[in-house]
């Protein structure tokens, strides 16, 4: 008897396991928020979720559209602003973990969410930095997810710091000792970072994925753990929580836009 799930649901289920109980976590939207909520509803009921917009202790009943969407929660416990979050919370070291979706990533977990191609002659401008550089720079751990992004040898634009040039270079640049990305979850597998060199290595495989297949996506000579973890398939309970909370995350952005546009066109033709 097999369980049927989408690739986003698999990522959410795996990412949720990275959160521990009693943690303070900064989460944005989408896959990350679904993972945070799944963790709170399963093994981490005492974790506290806050967003960059200053909404502290939200209890989201649906996935927020963006980091400042208070309609996702019936109230919250502390209303502050973005300066407060980055200074009194992030800079003082209170953030245990943050999540980040990845556009482009290199072997040391540095990320680009700004430009694809030469910034002076780019192909597309992505969203821009937003809060990513300071969150990934200063949260104790960063949990990275990547569903449409790419691995590159050299970033087109260095937006957010992972381990910079590897080794201790991140801490020498001014970021807190011991902080940094701990895991990257993609559509095919799970990657972690070597404790000394800080280079990314393949640590686990999703169902159906192979090391050979993943090597094709990675432009450098990827290190692979001696024993690879097998990502567990989401349980029926997890799938129920994810789909109730965020059908849009289950289906993904592309399919969501298609479904919503169909609804808009139906409305327009009805009222034409």
């Amino acid at each position, binding site marked *: 008897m097999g369980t049927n799930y989408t690739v986003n649901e698999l990522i959410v289920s795996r990412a949720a396991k990275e959160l521990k109980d009693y943690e303070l976590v900064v989460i944005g939207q989408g896959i990350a928020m679904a993972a945070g909520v799944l963790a709170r509803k399963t093994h981490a009921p005492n974790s506290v979720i806050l967003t960059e917009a200053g909404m502290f202790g939200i209890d989201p009943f649906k996935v927020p559209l963006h980091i400042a969407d208070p309609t996702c929660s019936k109230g919250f416990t502390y209303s502050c602003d973005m300066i407060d979050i980055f200074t009194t919370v992030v800079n003082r070291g209170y953030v245990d973990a943050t999540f980040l979706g990845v556009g482009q990533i290199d072997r040391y977990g540095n990320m680009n969410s700004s430009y694809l191609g030469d*910034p002076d002659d780019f192909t597309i401008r992505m969203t*821009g*930095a937003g809060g990513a550089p300071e969150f990934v720079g200063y949260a104790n751990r960063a949990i990275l997810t990547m569903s449409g992004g790419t691995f590159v040898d050299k970033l087109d634009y260095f937006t957010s710091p992972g381990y910079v040039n590897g080794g201790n270079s991140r801490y020498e640049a001014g970021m807190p000792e011991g902080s940094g990305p701990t895991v990257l979850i993609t559509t095919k597998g799970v990657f972690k970072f070597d404790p000394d060199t800080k280079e990314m290595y393949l640590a686990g495989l999703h169902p159906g994925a192979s090391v050979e297949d993943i090597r094709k996506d990675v432009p450098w000579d990827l290190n692979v753990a001696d024993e690879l973890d097998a990502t567990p398939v989401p349980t029926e309970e997890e799938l129920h929580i994810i789909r109730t909370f965020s059908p849009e995350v289950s289906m993904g952005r592309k399919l969501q836009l298609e479904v919503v546009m169909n609804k808009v066109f139906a409305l327009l033709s009805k009222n034409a």
Partner: protein
Amino acid sequence: MQKFMEPDKRMTAKEAIGQFVNDGESFVFANCLYSMPLALTHELIRQGKKNLMAFQQGGIEEIDQLLLAGALDRLALAYNFRAGGPRITTPLDRALKEKQIVVEELTNHTLLSMMKAGAMGYPFIPVLSGIRVSDVVKRRGFMGDQRFAEVTDPFTGESILVIKGYNPDFALMHVQRADKAGNGQLWGAMINSKWACLAAEKVILSCEKIVDTDVIMSSPHLTIVPAHKVCAVVECPWGAHPSEILGHYDYDFPFRALFFGSCANPEGAGAWMDEWIYNVADRREYIEHYISRFGQDTLDAFKAKSFKSVEADYGSTFSTDWNENGYSRNMGMNMDEFVAMLDEKGALIHGN
């Protein structure tokens, strides 16, 4: 520093933008993602304002709309929503490629820190130094070296990253309620609002509802912008649509999808701008047009249910030291005895 002390600043969006916005000025959105001042933004577009410089913390559709209208030539930007994958070219992509605008890339924290330093009257402010490795700091846009710098911490001798303060000419802001003098009250996602509106030289404020000053007096903790900063107050129901504002309405995702779908090519985007901005006179007509296109029930589905904040009691005895019998609670005497005491102690000056 100009103060705005008039007790009644109510006017229409058309009057406010016409009177207080000049071509070539800089401005900041004093909301970010939440409660966006879209009615004011659309009026700016209708009036054909040009060569503006925008500070945008994080946006969804307003920057694309201003670019389609040709209103901006400089943009300081931390985040802008992107609909669709690499095959789609957005209005921002096109404006940058065609050199319609120049851009300065910032992070959410550093852009808002520019506003905070400006609001406080400080020349610069420290930020989180570790991001010095990012291209956001290393590469320079149109602001050149007038943005980030490294200075020596005088107490530790360490080098720290700072950002320069900035005071935009005006801010556009939308809130739940305000009085006619412009004391504006906002709740929900506070994000950038306080520092952005205080940084600006003047604030053009729209609100869902104008209320009596008594309402403001009983809830000053909700006031985000004080009246002396505000040059115009515009009552404008649905003034943030399709963004959300607590107590009034949720975001309208299908309407946004329609805009971004239209933006796939310049012709579609132009048609959207005509239909929803140029061919309506104001926000009231925009909402009437919405109802005629999508139906009243579609709009009503976004209306908020009530979840009232428990009242903060601002009460006291509301009495002076003199009680209802005319006796002082602190001195145990009445007014006549008080005056006699002053005289006896030689504290009274006897006039002619």
